[in-house]
């Protein structure tokens, strides 16, 4: 039995400690916002925050998350009101939508570290997240908009 802290809640789970965090989230805890895309850390659909850092949950053993703070898309904000979530809606980014939770989770770390990212910064930070529908231009614009919202909120 292991204990995980996910989105500020504790869960006791009986699972092989080698299981990737992705599958524990999806199949043991029913948090399915974190997506399976490739299983080899190539597409970014499974990005979650482990103590605030973006990790690929498909290659992160659940044992690594024990005693740590895990945040998934479901816990990114209280009422879907993270600036990125608001900006994603404002720019109507999504097409199929499958990759977007991973995109937002990657972008959230960028925005925390860099309050005023350039397009180049965004491209560098987001190159690990594939969007098969090709919504990259809207993702870029949404991150810029979210950064602006975040700066205004701070004032």
């Amino acid at each position, binding site marked *: 039995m292991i204990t995980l802290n996910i989105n500020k809640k504790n869960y006791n789970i009986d699972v*092989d400690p080698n*299981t*990737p965090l992705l*599958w524990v989230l*999806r*199949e*043991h805890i*029913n*948090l*399915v*916002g*974190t*997506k*399976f*895309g*490739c*299983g*080899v850390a*190539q*597409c970014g*659909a499974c990005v979650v925050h482990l103590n605030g850092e973006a990790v690929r949950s498909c290659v992160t053993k659940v044992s690594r998350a024990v005693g740590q703070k895990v945040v*998934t*898309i*479901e816990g990114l904000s209280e009422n*879907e009101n993270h600036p*990125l*979530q608001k900006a*994603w*809606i404002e720019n*109507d980014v*999504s*097409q*199929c*939508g*499958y*990759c*977007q*939770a991973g995109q*937002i989770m990657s972008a959230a770390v960028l925005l925390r570290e860099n309050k005023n990212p350039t*397009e180049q910064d*965004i*491209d*560098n930070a*987001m*190159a*690990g*997240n*594939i*969007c*098969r*529908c*090709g*919504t*990259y*231009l*809207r*993702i*870029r614009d949404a991150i810029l908009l979210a950064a602006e919202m975040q700066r205004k909120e701070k004032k």
Partner: protein
Amino acid sequence: MENIENKQSRRTFMKSSTVAGGGLFLSFTWLSGFVTAVPVGEAPSGDWYELTGYIKITPDNIIKLINPNPEFGQNVMTSLPMIVAEELDADWQKVVVEMGPHDNVKLGPQFTGGSNSMRMYWRPLREAGAAARQMLKEAAAQTWGVPVDEVTTKASMLLHEKSGRSGTYGQFSSKAATIPVPKGMKLKEVKSFNVVRNSKKNVEGEKIISGKPLFGLDYKYEGMLIAMIEHPPAFGMKLKDFDATETLKMPGIKDVFRQTLYEDGFEQGGFDTRSFNELLVVVGKTTWEVMNARKKLKVTWEPIGDTLKNTMGGRNGKTEITVPGELETTTKQLEKFKEYAAKPAQQLRRDGDPETAFKNAAQVIERTYNAPFLAHNCMEPMNFFAHVMDDKAIVAGPLQAPGWSEPTLAKLINLPADKIEIQMTRMGGGFGLRAYGHYIYEAALISKRIKAPVKLVYTREDDMTYGIYRPTYTTTYRAALDANKNLIALHVKGGGIPEHAIHANRFPAGTIDNYLAEGWRIPSNITTGAFRAPGSNFAAASEQMFLDELAEAMGKDPIDFRLELLKRAKENPVGRNNEYNADRYMSVLQLVKEKSGWNNSENKKYSRGVAAYFCHNSYVAHVVDMVMRDGQPYVERVTSAADCGIVINPDAAINMIEGAVVDGIGNAFYGGLTMVNGEVQQKNFHQYRMIRINEAPKKIDVHFVQNEIDPTGLGEPPFPPVFGSVASAMYKLTGKRFYNFPLIKEFNSLNKA
């Protein structure tokens, strides 16, 4: 919709799920926190009043619109209900949208593909909205005792001006539901639209960005097991024998068995394509346990040899094809292309006397273009849920064409179609692949065998190496010019595995006096099928690349050259069967010329390429602006012009075109699947290069031709012309013409040489 309305939508949504006791909305109970197996509370059964299959209204004036067509990112979940709301005069802010169940009687053809959603549903949905509005007006008129013609509607309200009476749609919904559905209602004038032609946000946007369960892989069911298929390592191989002793010792594993998909002589439907027929199935409790246990399988495979495939229906009626068993290799396929290209081929169209024209030509230009297999690589790997019981079955998952899969499914599990409930989840991409039903059949047969609810899951490797790919193609163009550099004849001859991409009656057919189109095919065991603008994607690429080179040889501007040809098609067409409208073709070229500043000197810093194409009923042209960046070609800007008739949801339509442009650049530059002895060489995204954000243009400027023509689709049409515009820009950038996709592979190999 604004945030506040979406919150209301969610509350309503929960409520509607509760009504599921009646069975009407059973399909959606799983969305609200996996309550499928939990008994739902009692709710008033008359809560929703149905006015046609597409509209349900509550007494408190919540209007639910049913989206009939599967959603895979083309945004029909928003745009189709917008059409209903328009004619219904519904207040869009108070509308709730729900994905409909599979019900071809109530909800029409329910097919996502061929960019057909708009075209197929435009009229039926307008009629449904107008009919329901009339039913509400009748109900109000009867209640108020006034003539129905004096009742007007606005934003989900009924009004009688003379008496000052008014009421909500909701107040009259129960009465309206008892009125027979009228036919032949007068529809609105286009200029009076106030929902359609106004941008509305994706109705599932909030669920997407908050990680709600929406997709097939998110689907849960009480007692659900997980299954995976161990498939042969190469096309042309099949399962011989296996030893599952070690696998069965692994934690969570329930069963390992051999399962045949189609028995000998089974007549496949046109979309029943499958890569492998003998399945080695591993069933267990969780996905990770099954993934791990697969590694312990000891399997021997053997060559499949030539096989017979029976197909019924489809374009060719009932056919029997011998599928060769050869273990294919990409380099050998390309050699075969040369061999077949030299042989006589099937004539597809002939105008004038092309042979004589070529004999008399002062100059002949001949170019050959090649393109590889492409994998769809939907972000959500293939999966499907099935629960096959003795007397009924429930299947649920991502699927483009439920109506096409149902007959085969019914035959395979031996249940009548009306005992099979197909639920369509949101799809994490489709691009054509999810029109094929094999993974539903696989899931259903597995469920039937193990007598339990099960979800079949493909890993990314399964998805990529066990696909129904875009065929590999080759096309040779020949042009004959006279001494004055006039185009006197055109010959196009193409082939592929297993089909060619020649559309003989499309532009530039009809513009050249002497024209010959021919096609040939090489049968193969590599499974292929629809991929975003099937056939058209390569037809457009080769044609537009050749026209660019031809314009240059003739000393003409590439846009002006196309416009000249189209002028001929309009004024004095060659032949009668020309499958395009020259005016609409010209209008997108003229619009892209204007909006891209084609002749402006300030754009000289870019290497520019242009292409235009008509397929799937819409016209699109692109101008690509390319630069060299870190030694690699980079598309920095794109200007697009489209004519898809009335644009239903403008911002979402722009999104589709932006996405198609990015997808097109990615596939033109990087896309390609290769084989060695039948084994797919690209197994995951570290080997199959996908376009990423840093390779996407900085700007895509989208423009629409404004008209009032009935709307057509945008999923496919913007994709094919990307290839030619990118290739032509690369020529301007490098001074070299490129003929082989993926273009960056050819670029890098030329640079190395």
